[in-house]
């Protein structure tokens, strides 16, 4: 079979592995929903203030909540498949609509974070590995060690104390100055201005992670035979580092970026609630206070699916980039 045919089958096979995982998560979601105290009708009755038992029984029948559990599960699966994730009574909106609305700010935050964390992480890791056991290496390693141990929400709050309250350089919260009604470029600049602190906060932890990984990966590559060959050919150290070692050291770091997406979603819940960034994380935080379980489960489901999709994508890109990866 041709190479592209193999890649095609590989992608298909990986897709077929992703589907059962998503299905399992949906089922898990259903049972968590059932585990919680009270159902949608209790919530509705609570919202309405008073409801007779007869009316509640009628509502349960209407929503199918009086059916046996397996039937309810099937109905739930069918609903999820048609992107119906239930209704958020607090926001008076369908959960799926609400989630899509809040998805874009989170995506913006995460994409900038990934770019910054990977970019600087690769740079710092490279510097540390090239200057192994010098002061540069020590400073970078200590920095990585400390940021690795710092809680994200605390970094965020300290950033606000220093850069917003004392220096007044950046806004403390939100995504844009709504009252200013900026349009076009002004609006882009305004959003970018709001984006700085949340992005730095969220990137710090991953920056530490990628720095450590890049350093280890570089050092591992330096020990390989091809480096000895390159030295024997008389290549300069500079050329060996940047052309040979760097390229090979990048691969594992980029893979990890895909694996870390799940952790980054968790981090964005914290960072968004610190900076009141109006994304999915903030929505999750609000739904905690409002006891809006439907909404929380919807966010959980979407973030799980996102992780599966990102991992698949990284894997597929990888099988194109690295010919050594077994696709058969």
């Amino acid at each position: 079979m041709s190479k592209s045919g193999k890649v095609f089958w590989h992608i298909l096979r990986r897709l077929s592995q992703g589907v059962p995982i998503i299905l399992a998560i949906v089922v898990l979601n259903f049972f968590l929903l059932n585990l919680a105290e009270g159902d949608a009708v209790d919530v509705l009755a609570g919202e309405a203030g008073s409801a007779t038992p007869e009316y509640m029984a009628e509502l349960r029948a209407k929503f199918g909540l009086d059916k046996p559990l397996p039937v309810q599960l099937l109905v739930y699966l069918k609903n999820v498949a048609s992107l119906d994730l239930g209704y958020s009574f607090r926001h008076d909106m369908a959960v799926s609509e609400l989630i899509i609305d809040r998805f874009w700010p989170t995506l913006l935050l995460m994409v900038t974070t990934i770019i910054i964390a990977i970019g600087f992480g690769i740079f710092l890791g490279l510097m540390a590995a090239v200057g192994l056991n010098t002061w540069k290496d020590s400073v970078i390693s200590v920095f990585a060690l400390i940021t690795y141990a710092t809680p994200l929400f605390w970094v965020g709050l300290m950033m606000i104390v220093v850069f917003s309250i004392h220096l007044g350089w950046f806004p403390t919260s939100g995504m844009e100055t709504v009252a200013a009604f900026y349009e076009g470029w002004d609006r882009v600049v305004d959003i970018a201005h709001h984006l700085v602190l949340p992005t730095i906060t969220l990137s710090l932890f991953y920056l530490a992670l990628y720095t450590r990984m890049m350093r280890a990966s570089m050092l591992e590559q330096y020990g390989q035979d091809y480096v000895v060959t390159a030295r024997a050919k008389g290549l300069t150290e500079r050329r060996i580092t940047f052309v040979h070692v760097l390229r090979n050291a990048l691969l594992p770091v980029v893979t990890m970026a895909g694996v870390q997406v799940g952790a980054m979603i968790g981090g964005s819940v914290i960072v968004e609630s610190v900076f009141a960034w109006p994304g999915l994380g903030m929505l999750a935080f609000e739904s905690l206070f409002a006891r809006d379980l439907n909404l929380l489960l919807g966010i959980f489901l979407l973030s799980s699916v996102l992780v599966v999709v990102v991992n698949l994508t990284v894997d597929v890109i990888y099988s194109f980039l690295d010919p050594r990866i077994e696709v058969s």
Partner: protein
Amino acid sequence: MNEFWSRYARNRSAVMGLGILVLVIFMAAIASLIFPDDPFRLAGIPLSVPGANGFFLGSDTLGRDVASGIAHGAKTSLLIGLVATFAAVFIGIIFGAFSGYYGGLVDDILMRITEIFQTIPSFVFAILLVAIMKPSIESIVIAITVVSWPGVARLVRGEFLSLKNREFVQACHTIGMSDMRIIVREILPNCLSPIIVVGSLMVATAILIESGLAFLGLGDPNIMSWGFQIGAGRTMLRSAWWVCTFPGIAILVTVLAINLVGEGLNDALNPRLREGN
């Protein structure tokens, strides 16, 4: 033991980490002696700056003593970190051991389950679990356990895969030892060192997750914790920076110390890994 210590002591930052960790444990142990009152008690004038009104690290909006909260919070963090890690390691060993030892269908099923738990974004899952079970110390421990065991399971599985065909295991089969006995008494002791290293690092992660949950308002309402202090102080960030700052430093120092100890244990228990350098 002496040899172990000398290898551990070669890593100077690990010794420092151990020193700090001992101090934190000591602080947690004597918290009730130096601050006999309930840390939730209103101890004096609200929003006192550090050093004023008899508050070493200041007081918060309601006049609670920040220093007392940190001392009592140390107990919470260490307790939750340790219990959750032990539970996660226990579950991880069961999954990993059976999966690696039996292979085949058992391995397939157990690893599929592990994979699902690894895919789910762990912090969001922990939030969801605590929210559903209602915040309490038990639900927090359960949530952290549920999101932390898959890593251990993968590690233990790998170790079992590489050990199960060794001669000493085959010898056990020949003399008719039962599977359970081989797993628990023969193979498991041989993979304890990587489990100890991963477990020590997991305590640090567990403390970070716990503080994150408490910060979001999902801590046990009756127990003082560092995350709760920061979460409660954030509204007064503009006028009372100390309420958030000191508990955060406590988390940072503790987690850093545990990470350093973990690295030291790694050097001491897996000496082969370091000889290359």
